[in-house]
């Protein structure tokens, strides 16, 4: 449509796996899931062969489930790049929203065993979970859930891409946002946004540092457990030459093997924990994006106000004949002769028209800005609460995992001790 306003539809979409949501924004209408992943072969736009993974999105109306009907879900396949397109669209169309992040494009923070290959089944599985999480978060967002493009992403098999491009959202993309390091000298920065930007930097630093070290810890732990497997082998070989102590050694060796094998599941579970942290690492970026957009907006506002002020001053000077500021025109006119009164009159009129126009625009911009700030802060508060809840839960789940690991360890070593006592 191109009118700049995002497409909305009053549908209520809610997740089947719920996080806490404000009831007034949502109607329980459909369940969403990303249930499968499949390897595909296709051709790129350059007509080259490529392999990619497609993900199956299933949707089902909640009502039909409550009625006890077992209607099969509607489903369609999407690939990662389409998710990216959807997210970019949302970013541009709702600049004041902290848009939920996608799971990482490439595997980072890998420890030695994990494959960094996008086709690796473990990676694909974790990505599937991440994509589902993304859809659920968008669906439970008070603003985003009403978006029509989002709805058709979930339900419209073909022609979705065209529909997105038709919105013309790309025109609204401010290329200045891409220049990450560009700073805009804003004269009166909003303190709250400055603080928020600072916080998002700290959050990003903290989480990425944590994930890096966690990967190293995982690596070391893997080493400790796996080397115990060597005990298993040696005990078995040694037991072959022993009579009385052979049995005890052999069975203890078996427990060492069990111990060594147990680390695989333990670390697999921890990857999910790492993914939960990663989500907030990327959320930090989304947070910063909102701050940047505000910064740009503020910058534009200040530039517009400055321009208006300059024009007003010029107008005044022309009208009163006093030159308070240096201008080349002024100099040349002094050198080459004054303008005629008619000429001056025309100039003043032109300027006055511009000033009127710009004043209207500035007013609109100010309104836009204050709307933005209001909406943004509402969303940021919403985000903060969600972040605190989610991360706390994640930390608790980490503790639960450690407890489980300790209990397994006690079990195995108690069994081994029993075997040693029979040596």
């Amino acid at each position, binding site marked *: 449509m191109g009118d700049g306003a995002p497409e909305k539809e009053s549908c209520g979409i809610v997740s089947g796996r719920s996080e*806490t949501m404000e009831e007034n924004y949502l109607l329980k209408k459909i369940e969403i899931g990303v249930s499968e992943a499949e390897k595909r072969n296709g051709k790129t736009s350059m007509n080259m062969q490529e392999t990619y993974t497609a993900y199956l999105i299933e949707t089902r109306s909640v009502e039909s489930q409550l009625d006890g009907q077992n209607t099969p879900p509607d489903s369609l396949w999407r690939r990662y790049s389409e998710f990216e397109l959807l997210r970019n669209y949302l970013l541009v169309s709702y600049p004041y929203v902290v848009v939920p992040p996608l799971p990482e494009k490439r595997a980072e923070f890998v420890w030695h065993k994990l494959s960094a290959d996008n086709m690796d089944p473990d990676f694909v599985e974790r990505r599937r979970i991440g994509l589902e999480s993304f859809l659920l978060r968008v669906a439970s967002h008070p603003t985003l859930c009403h978006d029509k493009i989002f709805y058709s992403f979930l339900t419209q098999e073909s022609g979705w891409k065209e529909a997105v491009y038709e919105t013309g959202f790309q025109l609204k993309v401010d290329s200045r946002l891409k220049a990450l390091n560009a700073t805009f000298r804003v004269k009166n920065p909003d303190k709250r946004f400055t603080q928020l930007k600072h916080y998002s930097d700290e959050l990003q630093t*903290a989480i990425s*540092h944590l994930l890096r070290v966690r990967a190293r810890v995982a690596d070391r732990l893997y080493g*400790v457990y796996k080397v115990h497997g060597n005990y298993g082998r040696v005990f078995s070989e040694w037991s072959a030459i022993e009579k009385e*102590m052979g049995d*005890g050694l052999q069975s203890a060796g078996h427990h060492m093997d069990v111990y060594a094998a147990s680390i695989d599941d333990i670390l697999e579970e921890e990857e999910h924990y790492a993914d939960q942290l990663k989500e907030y690492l990327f959320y930090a970026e989304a947070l910063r994006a909102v701050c940047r957009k505000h910064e740009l907006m503020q910058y534009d506002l200040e530039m517009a106000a400055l321009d208006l002020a300059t024009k007003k001053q010029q107008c005044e000077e022309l009208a009163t004949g006093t030159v308070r500021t240096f201008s080349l025109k002024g100099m040349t006119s002094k050198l080459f002769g004054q303008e005629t009164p008619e000429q001056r009159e025309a100039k003043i009129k032109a300027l006055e028209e511009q000033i009127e126009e710009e004043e209207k625009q500035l007013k609109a911009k100010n309104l836009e800005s204050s709307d933005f700030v209001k909406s943004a802060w509402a969303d940021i508060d919403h985000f903060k609460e969600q972040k605190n809840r989610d991360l706390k839960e994640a930390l608790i789940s980490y*503790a639960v995992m450690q*407890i489980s690991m300790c209990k397994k360890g*006690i079990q195995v070593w108690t069994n081994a*001790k029993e075997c040693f006592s029979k040596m």
Partner: protein
Amino acid sequence: MSEGVMRYKRKGFDCGECLRHNSNDLEDWREGHHINGCKLIQFYNGGISFIYDNQNKFEEEPDVKDLFITVDDPESHFTAIETFITYRVATKTSRGEFDSSEYEVRRRYQDFIWLKSRLEDAHPTLILPPLPEKFIMKGMVERFNDDFIETRRKALHTFLNRIADHPTLSFNEDFKVFLTAQAWELTTHKKQGPSLLSRMGQTVRAVASSVRGVKNRPEEFVAISEYVETFSQKINTLDKITHRIYKEEKEYFEEMKEYGSIHTLWSASEEDLAGSLKGIASCTDKCCKAIDQLMAGLSENLMPVVQEYILYSEMLMSVLKRRDQIQADLDVKVEALSSKKTDQESLHEAIGILEDKVECANNALKSDWDRWKQNMRSDFKSAFTNMAEININYYEECLATWEAFLSSQANNPQLEEDPEDKL
């Protein structure tokens, strides 16, 4: 001479160990016989051979320990020529052959080497406890670093106590001198022993015979030899594995420390989450302490035992070689019988003596072998049991820490009261 010679008959005796002594004084030995429960068997060439009659054991048997030795208090000594360490060797005993019930002397590593070689000479086919190595290869730059001294001290302590527990070796005269003589007395005593050259001769011949191979090695010694070879391999592998585990644990410890500090750092930029983050940091710190304890446990118990048995397996191989050598000496003489040029009568006499010598050596080794196997089994049983225990303790400590964290989170009033929250 011929008066005193009695042919040793194997029937009717259930023999234990073979004791050889350098004195011709029968009266000395009658007394010795009475205390130690051994029977006089024969004189030959200035020596006397005894065999313990295990069936006539006295009530107060070696199960009640009557010789207690400690090795401690390492001290550095500096002379113009060299720097060396002495250790305090303290003895407490109720044995009659000791003039006093308590002794305290200082000994250096060289003295231990002297003692060991004297014991080897007196009992070539007994399984002597190993001495700690002269130098440790891996990464030791400074000879007198604290860990090295402590490890050596413990090994020397074990060495002397193993001798004290040995039914034959603990009554060795040189051993008594080692425990009781003052420094100058020891020096004098040392000079009385056989020369270095004669000892070297024995070793050279022993090595040579092992290269040639012994033809008539009895079945049981073939079996022992094969066992020792495999045992040696397995023990060396065990040692490598244990050191590797220690290394991995250490690196795990380092990473966990950093992991904990990251959580503390992060908590500085958070409000609601700060408590949970600090909680995790404190848990990881406590787990680090537990890892430290685990490592200490490994290095105090398992590692010295494995190290000792590595040296034991080398020792066993030399004992087997020496036995082979003794047999080879006999075989050579027996072969010479077939040559008519030799003096048949003196040859028969010599063969008779050597046959006894071989018999003695074999019996000594056999019973010491059984004893060694029993000790080995019990040593490893307790070392491995201990290893299991320290691992169980480690996991129990960590478990307690994480459970405490979990319950602190459950009681935390900062938690959202929304019942939708999953925890």
